[in-house]
């Protein structure tokens, strides 16, 4: 839907500029972290626990170390520094030594001359376990009588929210229970890193695919007992992230192996190992009770959200806060009593994934909105418009939504998008639910329509001291940018170039290597890099421009404040001077560094009150599905969406985020789930963890809502997360609409529909 600019426009902000790394990626010459090799390199591999919960009685590595080609085997006792790591709480062992607390927990690492030698060495390590009964249910974890499975206890966080009048009541009460399955980020580029030890062993260089170089650097340095500056990180090409690369996976292990052997060591997970090696989206259960007026206005919400954080803390406490503080959805809600819990179990650790707690909240509040609509006899659109949040409304945390809040507009513009044609009589089997399986015929199909609308916070919350740094150098008409912002596929590399072209009037923008030789850019997550690193690049370029203006003004005896950039020229607004930027910057070298910080946020008090978030974005989704009701098979036909983006900086890249997010939300709605049984992961492979294919992709109609946010450095809001949030409830609502079944859980399985 959005228009593309194909003329020879300058690739400035607002234009669909093309990625600088695009061609190399199509040719296979772009280097992903897994593509790095080194002379004399060894391979590393990890021994993982087959049990979700067990006491380690003994570990015997003697046979493994004897294998020809095996260079070293490392255990917890070989970790020189801190024995644990973690993003928020440092509670996860580098290697398990006393207990293993989830299936797949690392116990040892080996380095050898060939991946197969590594695997044989892993086979030869003998671990004796006393297998313990795993703690796998949220309810058991919340039960104070359940013994703790970790010294830090079984509850990561409880957050109570009390807002307005706890005793307020409505005319009608609408109740619902909702359940969300465990989703995997399933980026395609598997975890990989290559570590080069310094020849004297006093430092290390690590090429790694990560979302946050500096956080990795800090955690690795602590575990290696090295000063931070001795641990130098370089971003290896990142094959997608979606939250799964925010935590440490193989970083510390690779460095340890390299330091021990004195040789470069490469580690690369298999897909199966990747399922064990990174955190997942929290599964959870949410109960909600809405008090509404006869007309359908929300008076109060009550309820609980319980998230299973798995064995280690990761970001569970932050995910929980995001969940509970968004539980009202993008709707006015004067009163609330709500409790959220994130618990520890012997399931795989859960943490960041695109949408970060809000996906879970949204699935529940949108289910409720449809129930409210039904209870008061309104359409899903009417009831949402009636309650739609506006600028100045408050969250149930008491925080006012001060930025642009075009909720009603998102809904209306989505509603105005055309619905798909009805299924034609000639529809081929590939267009029906069941696809190539040829299960369905036209008369087996029912069509349904459903809605989802959401609010998503942007950036980090709860007083986190968040910043991003960037450096710009201008000389001879060429701008060079340096930042540590992880490019994970989202396209910051092209945005950074667009900013520099716009601010400085240059066309050639060189990107320096992405590494730790500059201050942190923070994580590529929380929809924050356009705002944060974009703000930093913008700030650095503006400082350079000031210096350039001073330089030109000095040469020509003008006041620098008279000068502006017009296209690729510097122009005197009060006189005749016009000089191209390349000309003006000939022989000069101006370098400026800028640290961008967003406004401060607060922690929540004991009633969950406080201005804990920075900013918000909104989105509406309308889903159309075809369902083979008798077999329970679903085909998502079309997704229409309007999203509050502030300002569209690159329409093509924006559309890519929208369509990509929708596919991930579709996955959570109808096929993607890590299946757990007593702490055992049953489907750690792409054969059984199903991702949407080209034949599952719906048509997407998209309208960007452009109301520039005055608080955002470029007027643009983050766009990465909202696309995947309300699309899941919209699809599930459409299935409910087609079948009349009150589906409580996502993903929806065939048997949920037809049995």
């Amino acid at each position, binding site marked *: 839907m959005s228009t593309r600019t*194909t003329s020879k426009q300058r690739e400035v902000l607002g234009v669909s500029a*093309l*990625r600088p*790394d*695009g*061609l190399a*990626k*199509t*040719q*296979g*010459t772009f*280097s*992903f972290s*897994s*593509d790095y*090799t080194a002379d004399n390199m060894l391979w590393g591999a990890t021994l993982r626990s087959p049990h979700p919960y067990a006491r380690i009685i003994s570990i015997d590595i003697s046979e493994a170390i004897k294998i*020809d*080609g095996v260079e070293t085997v490392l255990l917890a006792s070989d970790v020189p520094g801190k024995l644990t790591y973690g993003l928020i709480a440092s509670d996860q062992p580098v290697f398990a030594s006393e207990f293993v607390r989830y299936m797949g927990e690392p116990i040892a690492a080996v380095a*050898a001359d*060939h*991946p*197969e*030698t590594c695997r044989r060495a892993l086979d030869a390590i003998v671990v004796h376990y006393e297998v313990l009964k795993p703690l796998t249910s949220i309810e058991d974890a919340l039960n104070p009588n359940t013994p703790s499975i970790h010294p830090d206890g079984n509850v990561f966080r409880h957050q109570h929210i009390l807002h307005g009048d706890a005793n307020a009541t409505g005319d009608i009460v609408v109740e619902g229970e909702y359940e969300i399955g465990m989703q995997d980020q399933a*980026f*395609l*580029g*598997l975890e990989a890193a290559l570590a080069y030890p310094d020849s004297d062993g006093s430092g290390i260089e690590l090429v790694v695919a990560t979302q946050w170089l500096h956080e990795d650097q800090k955690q690795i340095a602590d575990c290696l007992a090295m000063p931070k500056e001795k641990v130098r990180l370089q971003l290896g*090409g*990142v*094959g*997608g*992230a*979606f939250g799964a690369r925010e935590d440490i996976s193989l970083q510390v292990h690779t460095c340890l192996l390299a330091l021990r052997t004195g040789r470069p060591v490469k580690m690369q997970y*298999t*897909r199966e190992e990747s399922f064990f090696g990174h955190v997942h989206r929290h599964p959870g259960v949410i109960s909600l009770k809405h008090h509404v007026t006869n007309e359908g206005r929300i008076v109060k919400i009550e309820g609980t959200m319980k998230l299973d954080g798995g064995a280690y803390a990761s970001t569970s406490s932050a995910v929980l806060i995001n969940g509970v503080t968004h539980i009202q959805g993008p709707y006015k809600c004067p009163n609330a009593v709500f409790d959220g819990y994130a618990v520890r179990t012997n399931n795989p650790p859960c943490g960041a994934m695109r949408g970060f707690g809000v996906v879970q909240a949204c699935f529940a509040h949108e289910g409720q909105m449809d129930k409210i609509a039904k209870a008061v006899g309104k359409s899903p659109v009417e009831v949402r418009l009636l309650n739609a949040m506006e600028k100045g409304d408050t969250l149930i945390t008491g925080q006012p939504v001060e930025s642009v809040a075009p909720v009603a507009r998102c809904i209306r513009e989505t509603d105005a998008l055309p619905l798909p044609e009805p299924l034609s009589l000639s529809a*081929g089997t*590939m*267009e029906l639910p069941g696809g*190539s399986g040829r299960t369905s015929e036209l008369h087996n199909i029912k069509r349904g329509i459903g809605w989802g609308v959401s609010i998503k916070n942007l950036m980090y919350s709860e007083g986190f001291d968040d910043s991003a740094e960037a450096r710009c150098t201008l000389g001879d008409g060429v701008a060079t940018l340096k930042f540590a912002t992880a490019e*994970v*596929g*989202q*396209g910051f590399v092209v945005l950074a170039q667009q900013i520099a072209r716009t601010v400085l009037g240059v066309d050639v923008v060189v990107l320096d290597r992405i590494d730790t030789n500059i201050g942190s850019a923070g994580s590529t997550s929380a929809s924050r890099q356009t705002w944060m690193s974009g703000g930093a690049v913008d700030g650095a370029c503006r400082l350079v421009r000031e210096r350039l203006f001073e330089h030109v003004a000095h040469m020509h005896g003008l006041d620098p404040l008279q000068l502006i950039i017009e296209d690729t020229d510097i122009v005197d607004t009060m006189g005749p001077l016009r000089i191209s930027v390349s000309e003006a910057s000939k022989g000069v070298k101006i370098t400026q560094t800028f640290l961008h910080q967003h406004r401060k946020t607060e922690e929540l008090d004991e009633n969950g009150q406080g201005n804990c978030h920075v900013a918000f974005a909104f989105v509406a989704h309308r889903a159309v599905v075809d369902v083979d009701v008798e077999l329970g098979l679903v085909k998502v036909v079309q997704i229409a969406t309007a999203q509050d983006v502030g300002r569209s900086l690159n329409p093509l890249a924006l*559309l*890519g985020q*929208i*369509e*990509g*997010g929708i*596919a*991930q939300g579709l996955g959570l709605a109808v096929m993607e789930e890590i299946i757990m049984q007593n702490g055992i992961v049953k489907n750690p*492979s*792409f*054969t059984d963890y199903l991702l*949407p*294919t*080209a*034949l599952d*992709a719906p048509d*997407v109609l998209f309208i960007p809502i452009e109301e520039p946010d005055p608080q955002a450095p470029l007027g643009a809001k983050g766009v990465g997360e909202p696309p995947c949030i309300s699309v899941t409830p919209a699809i599930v609502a459409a299935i409910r609409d087609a079948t009349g079944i009150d589906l409580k859980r996502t993903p929806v399985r065939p048997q949920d529909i037809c049995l």
Partner: protein
Amino acid sequence: MSTSSEIYSLRVNGTDQHVKDAWIGESLLYVLRERLGFMGSKGACEQGECGSCTVLINNDAVCSCLVMAASAIDTDIITVEGLAPSESPNDIQQAFVAEGAVQCGFCTPGLIVAVHHLLETNSSPSEIEVKEALSGNICRCTGYGRIFSAVQLVISQREKSIS
């Protein structure tokens, strides 16, 4: 590794490549990447489910992770590197960039090979034929929309250049 035994040669992008001391279980994907330096083919599942490793063998698009390298003797293997010289990318590669079909890019080389193969065998596939032909190539970033656009762009450009 110590149990290595195999010596054979593979014809990759028209050139004979000698492989020695290989372990018999090595996949073509592994040999291409780790022994012969063709890093364009990517591995994301090693079980045929993602298509990132797609190469052409005797003009069939296949998953190189599922080909035992030592069994691929006397075949013509074409990798993404062999589709076009690096200084002059082909129309499919250019269309992928122009239409925004590349995000993280990990799926991209496999898709380029799959699209190349599709258009070699069917120069004007319908929308649904394109989807079916690409159903073995998982892309986690794009949701496929821009990829379909890129394929359509190539089809229409080629049609135009013929007429």
